[in-house]
């Protein structure tokens, strides 16, 4: 895949973040931005015909291992953020009875 295409995924994520009025959709858009960045980084570190970065005698050309190491960390952090955000959106739904941003930000919480 072309790096430009993955950058377009990032831009789609930002577009969605600035148009979606729903908390769950916003969470997904952040995830999409994150996936786009991960694909972008892996793509830039990759090239055609390079083999996996595990040291052995026969292998002569390997892809850059650093992006892969870094992106594993990013995936872990991203899943944490998604889990946190989904948990918080459930709580927000319990307290406000809605997951639309305009209802949540403009309204007092429901008395349970």
């Amino acid at each position, binding site marked *: 895949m072309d790096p430009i295409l993955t950058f377009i995924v*990032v831009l789609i994520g930002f577009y969605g973040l600035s148009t979606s009025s729903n908390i769950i959709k916003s*969470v997904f858009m952040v995830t999409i931005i994150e996936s786009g960045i991960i694909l972008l980084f892996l793509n830039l570190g990759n090239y055609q015909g390079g083999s996996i970065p595990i040291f052995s005698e026969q292998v002569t050309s390997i892809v850059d291992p650093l992006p892969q190491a870094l992106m594993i*960390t990013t995936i872990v952090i991203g899943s944490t953020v998604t889990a946190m955000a989904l948990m918080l959106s459930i709580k927000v739904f319990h*307290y*406000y009875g809605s997951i639309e941003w305009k209802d949540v*930000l403009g309204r007092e919480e429901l008395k349970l």
Partner: protein
Amino acid sequence: MIFIPVYLVIIPIFASLVIYIFKNKHMNYLALLAQAVVTVLAIVYYQHFSGNFEATMFVFGGWDDRIGISMSNDALSLSFVFLTVFTWWMVLLYTFDKGNTNHNFIFFLLFLEGVFFGILMTNDLFNMFVFLELAAILVTILIAFNKAGNSFRAGIYYLLVNTAGVLTFLIGIILIYFTFGTININVITNLMPLYGDELIIKFAYVLLMSGIAVKSALFPVFTWLPHAHGVAQSAISALLSGLIVKGGLYLFIRINQMYAAANYDYYAFFFVLGALTAIVGVMFALSQKDMKQILAYHTVSQIGIMMMGLSSQDVNVYYGGVLHIFNHALFKSLLFLGAGVIIKVYRTKKVNEIRGVFKTMPWVSIFMIVGMLSITGAPLFNGFISKSIIKYGIQDSGIKYWTLFIINIGTATSFIKMSQIFFGPQSLSYPMQRKLQNFALMSIAFGCIILGNFYIPINQGFFGIDLSYIHIFEFAKFFDYFLTLAIGYLFYYFIISKDKPPIPNIRNFSISFEASNIIFIALIVVMTIYFVLL
């Protein structure tokens, strides 16, 4: 000796894990022990390396420094470390005294300390990203810790806005990696003359800076800050205002040091951004009625003043900006902690409903007044020193000087409004005397006064900068201050206290989450046009 930065990160995190596992009330005191160990280690480390900061650089596992993860320190990062240690002491003492020593709360609080040390001392861009994101997650949990509807709302708002900001920071890191082939800040600094003029590196600068703008709550993207600070517990608000937001400004300094050889003309842009931040923050602060919201918007405006200082070519003004970070950390955490005590006793946050605080709790009132005098820039208190340095440096340029003057009047007005809580008869009794809480407030108040009076030897010793050109006892300084107060009082009496038309409109002004993201993207576009295309 050289591995002490690792211990500073590990010890709080490890102690917090032990506290979390044992869930024992006595085990909570391990937090204080860990804090004491961290304090001693930081002091030993500073004494060993002061004057020879190049030696603090080390790479984990003995790798080549272009590949391995490294840590390093300088006078700036170590002074931030000491500020962190001090603030965490005060917040821990304050929390322990409130009686609800919830082990979960202590766990997240201590964990955040370790992560924040990581942000300060790392020499690796990707590590910086990891620590930033971890800090964002932990702060979200701490904001939502009250388990009320509005704290969950503020938590998710904070988390999503900050994650979007940190992810743009990550794109910047990726672009830098594919130009330089390394993410070690020292190596990049040395290689910067080679690649500084390339478009992709300029674009990376824009992305890094827009991430930092979200983190440090600059003008168009500060909307998360009042949400978060208004609803969090007072100890957490103090921590957020005092330190976590300053993490963004620290990164601003670091990234600009990294780009020093590229010679970008960022001064004018960030000065305007800082001035706008300060003015908008003061405007919103004047219109608020909620005590914590007032303080939160003042954090925004003070960050604007720091940004005005930091984006200056004059070394003295720049140093004034750095010094204002420290001074603001002291007096704003003092104000938030004091406000927390008052709110807890009066059970309301509305400024017009709280009266007679001075009669009810004289000590807390005195410490609050010290904080208020500091933030308005009264001579003999610490806010005066850094504001004077900035004012002294920009007094030749008329428009800059008057901008700062207007901001000072706004600050004075809104603290005159807030000081109304002290007047009036004693309305309720305050039976509990919380010694540790008062001790924490008193230490910060002493810090304010000491930094405001003995600034020459302190700054000479720590940063090696001579401030003897700032004189406290000058008629003009006192005249300036009282003039500001007088104008502020008139402004308060005739406009703010009557709640005239523009004030309620500003108070009720709010923007949606989507709009704040559009504004964030607009900021990136504007910065791209300014830095890359022009």
